[in-house]
């Protein structure tokens, strides 16, 4: 009998089916990989198991008994624990305090720290951890913090541990340490679900693997009987490209040039490591990569919203220190990553959204006074040329569909034929027609001489419109090719760090 069985799990969110009749069967004492690209439905499935979401359909069985898991606390009572990508630790509390948080042993009004310590020590010895107990967790390395998370679950008597891409934040050495811990846990009879997209780790660590793609189970394999190539194929799927647009006919001079660009995230961790590339007029450069490989930082660096080391040139001008507005004046257009947060002001109407990058220029204003008629005319024109379904320019943007919202952004950014366009996930969440429209618009702009940087999680899209594809892995560019000279499989291997790490 399987330790855990999830049967026919279906969960849909407005517009997407995240899990479509997913079956998952995990044996006791095994490390079971849950494999798939971002957006394949792994996290949704695990959140259902952890009681954070309720499935639309399907059942969960633990040791053969059907269970209802209504919240994370209930999950923990059933012996299910999860280590999230973002640790649930309180930085200033000590290791011991974090481990027992919410389950303190009391002696009257105070903490019974001696008894508590004894229990923690027992766990440390049994599973072979080595950690100081009195140090604030903020002083620990990321790897050690992750171990605290695991011990926290063991202290709460979890038998099934879910780890969500645990190595994405670790150094190679820390990764080795984690593997040792997980192997110890397996020997002690614990069951582990290991969410990842890194094939090497599956091969190295896991007993079985379930592969998800677009919310469906596409493979269920015994790891020892397969190889990385087969897994990669399952993950990224067959190569059926929607429609290949004609490639660029002529390449002009360099319009966007990044030279030795490095950047750090908000905590000071390096996320872009000495990246250089350039894009020519009349060219679409696609960037492929697992989400979180440095895409956001590239977009912010080019937009002027993140401090960097290195140089960026736009149309021959050094814009490394230029303000976002100056960059836009030099011909930069941006379709931001987060449509609703960065790309649009949902509180206001279409016309206000359309003029946010040009309101200070004639004919939209003169002597700092807005000219309503010109603004309205412009908005009407954009609504017509981009086919935005809205009665008037005064319709609130939050009342538009996703596709029409994206068209508002496109209309704003593309109507002045920008020299350079940075398009981040421009078709995410759009229906087929809207997707097609967005891609056509980009290709048309390219044919008119724009240089386009396309960032997408969708390989179909990259193969469909790019003239060149580069792969971003952990902040480095690891591969470059023309789409006709490469394949999903090859790109997929680079995205998952296969050839890069060995």
């Amino acid at each position, binding site marked *: 009998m399987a330790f855990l069985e999830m049967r026919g799990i279906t969960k849909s969110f407005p517009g997407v089916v995240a899990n479509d009749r997913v079956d998952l069967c995990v044996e006791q004492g095994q490390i079971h990989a849950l494999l798939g690209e971002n957006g394949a439905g792994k996290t949704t499935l695990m959140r259902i198991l952890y009681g954070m979401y309720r499935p639309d359909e399907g059942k969960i069985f633990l040791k053969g008994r059907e269970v209802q898991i209504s919240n994370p606390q209930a999950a923990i009572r059933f012996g299910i624990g999860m280590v999230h990508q973002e640790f649930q630790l309180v930085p200033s509390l000590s290791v011991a305090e974090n481990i027992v948080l919410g389950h303190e042993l009391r002696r009257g009004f105070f903490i019974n720290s001696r008894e508590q310590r004894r229990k923690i020590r027992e766990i440390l010895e049994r599973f072979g951890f080595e950690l100081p107990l009195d140090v604030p967790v903020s002083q620990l390395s990321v790897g050690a913090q992750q171990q605290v998370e695991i011990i926290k679950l063991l202290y709460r008597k979890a038998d099934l541990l879910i780890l969500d891409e645990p190595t994405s934040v670790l150094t190679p050495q820390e990764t080795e340490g984690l593997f040792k811990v997980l192997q110890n846990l397996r020997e002690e009879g614990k069951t582990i679900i290991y969410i990842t997209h890194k094939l090497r780790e599956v091969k190295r660590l896991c007993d079985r693997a379930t592969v998800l793609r677009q919310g469906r189970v596409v493979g269920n394999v015994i790891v020892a009987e397969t190889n990385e190539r087969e897994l990669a194929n399952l993950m990224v799927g067959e190569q059926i490209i929607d429609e290949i647009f004609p490639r660029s006919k002529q390449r002009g001079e360099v319009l966007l040039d990044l030279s030795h660009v490095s950047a750090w995230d908000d905590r000071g961790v390096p996320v872009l490591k000495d990246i250089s590339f350039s894009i020519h007029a009349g060219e679409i450069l696609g960037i492929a990569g697992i989400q979180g490989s440095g895409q956001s930082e590239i977009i912010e660096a080019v*937009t002027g919203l993140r401090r960097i080391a290195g140089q960026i040139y736009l149309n021959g001008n050094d814009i490394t220190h230029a303000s976002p507005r100056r960059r836009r004046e030099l011909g930069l257009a*941006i379709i931001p990553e987060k449509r609703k947060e960065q*790309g649009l*002001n949902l*509180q206001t109407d279409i016309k206000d959204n359309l*003029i946010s990058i040009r309101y200070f220029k004639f004919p939209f204003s003169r002597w700092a*006074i807005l000219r309503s008629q010109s603004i309205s005319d412009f908005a009407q024109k954009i609504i017509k040329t981009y086919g935005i379904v809205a009665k008037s320019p005064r319709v609130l943007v939050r009342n538009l569909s996703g596709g029409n919202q994206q068209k508002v952004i496109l209309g704003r950014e593309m109507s002045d034929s920008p020299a350079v366009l940075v398009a981040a996930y421009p078709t995410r969440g759009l229906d087929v027609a809207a997707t097609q429209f967005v891609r056509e618009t980009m290709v048309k702009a390219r044919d008119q001489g724009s240089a386009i940087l396309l960032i997408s999680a969708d390989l179909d899209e990259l193969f469909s419109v790019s003239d060149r594809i580069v792969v971003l892995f952990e902040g480095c560019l690891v591969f470059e090719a023309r789409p006709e000279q490469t394949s999903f499989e090859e790109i997929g291997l680079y995205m998952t760090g296969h050839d890069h790490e060995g």
Partner: protein
Amino acid sequence: MKAKTSSLSNADKSRKTFFLNEWFGIQIIPSTLRVILTLAIAFLMGAIVMWVSGKDALQAYNALFQSSLGSRTAIANSLLAATPILFTSMAAVIAFRAGVFNVGVEGSLYLGAFAAAWVGFTFTNLQSWVLITLCLCASAIVGGVWCLIPGLLKLRLGVDELVTTILLNYVAILFTEYLVNGPFLVPGLANAMSEQIAPGARLVRLMPPSQLNLSFIIAIVVAIIVIYIMHKTTLGYEIRMVGDNPDFARWSGINVSSVIEKVMFIGGILGGLAGAGQVMGVHYRFIAGFSPGLAFTGVTVALLVRNSPLGALLVALLFGILRSGGATMELMSDVPRDLIRVLEATLIFFAAIEFGSLIRRRRRVN
């Protein structure tokens, strides 16, 4: 701090969904029903407080409105009381609309008032219109710069603006008090006050015997200018975008810090003008501690109308009625005028709860 400002910036999202009265593209009355309801609750609370302390609520309210609306002079006095609130509520509305919590306007009001008084009693031999212009400019600049200080501290260094603005208010109040007790001490005056300003610097009284004066007209004009700025200029556009969604503004290339600096500066200007109006139109001199928290009343108005400048104009007039009626109510019905503060507190309290429930609604949508 961050959560706070964003909650403010999103506060007026329901504005457009209530009553869509439009007038040349500008809404006239923002969610009238809500304002009326909140007022009704406040009056009810006031009645309960009076009942508990053994006073006749009906008689008190009757006296309140009799003495604020019952005659020509009463009405004029209400408009007089509304004048500084008009300025300060515009300052608060602009700040909230940009998502900033600017409580430093009270300090600008004092410093601006003193600046106007100083010009008024120093350059006595200038022509009247020159002198009046100079007085107003001095108060506006001093007030504006004063509010810019906490703004810069916040933007450059991240010093919490709420605490600094409140504490700097005390500094401004004490400093002006020092000025009239120290360098500008007028021997022979019992109270802490400056010399009288030159007759040429005094604003014309509109409806004697009321002290209602030209500053009321100036306030109305300024309010209309603010409404115009908010809806029809590039600056107003920037303020609205920054207030609605600072991230969007940043990605569009708008310099968010500079917009917030401008907003603080304008708030200070309006505070300074409010002070100048009291000096040049009412007291004809600077009097230490003359403002009973006029800037805070402006904040209350702004909270109540949820950042619509036009609504603020109307509600500021209403608050003028309460303020001017409160003083006479005390004489006629022996209910202390501090009742008005209790009413105001109730209004703020319910405004706070509405702010919260709005945010919750947004969370549910997402």
